[in-house]
């Protein structure tokens, strides 16, 4: 059985180490926060916050306290606030250990596409280009194939790039792969998924 969304998030949480400052993207990456366990992880929200807490209780929403997805959130005892220039200063400056984010396509050379489909409505890249260019480690969490069953792990991206050669590790519903010299390397298969099944679902060169 391939991993479901929560199992992918739990696997991604294993990438995080005690003491890390981490930025989580929207979607499955947001779920990673539920699986960090006892590890001392500080979440950054790029609109200007370190130490992002959970959603507020009903009736305690604060319009001055939102995350990068514009959702109401809470602060923690460790929280610090700052402006957008400083927020992206710490991102661009390599102070954030890792970003976990979703993707439409990843290429075998680490190219990432996740912000735009030509001919469709273009909403913008937000902070994604800054994050993938600046953080220490870029971990993509996504389904291995798209809704048509085509591989999202490609020899070359077909969509406009978010970053060139930026992805370090890919966690999909079928397993975990690293971007290495010459292509992608299988790190592990999801429980019950065979290496042959993972290979068959992957267009990118596997080394």
């Amino acid at each position, binding site marked *: 059985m391939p991993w479901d969304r929560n199992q992918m998030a739990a696997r991604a949480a294993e990438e995080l180490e005690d003491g890390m400052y981490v930025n989580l993207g929207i979607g499955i990456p947001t779920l990673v926060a539920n699986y960090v366990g006892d590890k001392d992880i500080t979440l950054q929200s790029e609109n200007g916050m370190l130490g992002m807490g959970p959603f*507020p209780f009903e009736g305690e*929403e604060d319009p001055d306290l939102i995350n990068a997805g*514009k959702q109401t959130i809470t602060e923690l005892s460790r929280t610090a606030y700052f402006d*957008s*220039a400083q927020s992206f200063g710490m991102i661009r400056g390599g102070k954030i250990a890792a970003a976990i984010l979703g993707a439409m396509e990843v290429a075998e050379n680490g190219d990432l596409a996740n912000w735009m489909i030509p001919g469709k*409505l273009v909403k913008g890249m937000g902070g994604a280009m800054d994050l993938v260019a600046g953080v220490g480690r870029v971990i993509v969490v996504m389904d291995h194939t798209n809704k048509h069953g085509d591989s999202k792990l490609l020899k070359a991206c077909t969509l406009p790039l978010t970053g060139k050669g930026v992805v370090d590790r890919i966690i999909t519903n079928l397993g975990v792969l690293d971007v290495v010299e010459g292509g992608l390397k299988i790190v592990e298969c999801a429980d019950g998924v065979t290496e042959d099944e993972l290979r068959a679902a992957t267009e990118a060169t596997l080394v």
Partner: protein
Amino acid sequence: MNKIYPSAEAALDGLLRDDLLIAAGGFGLCGIPELLIDAIVASGVKNLTIASNNCGVDGFGLGKLLDTRQIKKMMSSYVGENDEFMRQYLSGELEIEFNPQGTLAERMRAGGCGIPGFYTKTGVGTVIAEGKEVKSWNGQDYILEEGIFADLSIVKAWKADDTGNLIFRKTARNFNPPAAMCGKVCVAEVEEIVPRGSLDPDLIHLPGIYVHRLIQGAHEKRIEQRTTRKREDA
């Protein structure tokens, strides 16, 4: 030196004309200068270029200036929350210059610091890099991005003293300080103006040197995505 004005309209008197480049603070609907936006709508000035991370939502925030067709061009990182924005963009009535969010913030900060350009690795190898100078340091490519020098800045803070020293609240700070810094003139709207000496000088987020005019007023502070958890989950 009196920086305090009785209304948003009064604070913008003499500053507004067609074709301005305006830098606006705010992220989504959080920390946006609601009162100054309403006054710009009422003024009727048009062909505005606005540097702001987002463009409000339909009928609120900068979205109001879309409804009245006063915006010619947006410099933003994300504009996904607004149907009227998409309609005007797809019909060619509105231009958009997409900026990566951190590049937009740094362009504002740089402009405010007298820095006409800076190199960043954000966007290297993407459409954002097209037409921009590329320079290499230690084997890493960087692209040249330009500082933003706005004609006018409009920002929202929590508290000000009468000299314009500003304090923001939580994530409503966001783009407000860099937006304030990059304008020739900055007008700030706050929830409360207090006498000088009432704010701890060590806790000022933006010194009053960047703030030329001030107004105080009530803010709607609309929430874009109300997300909560149930108490039994705690």
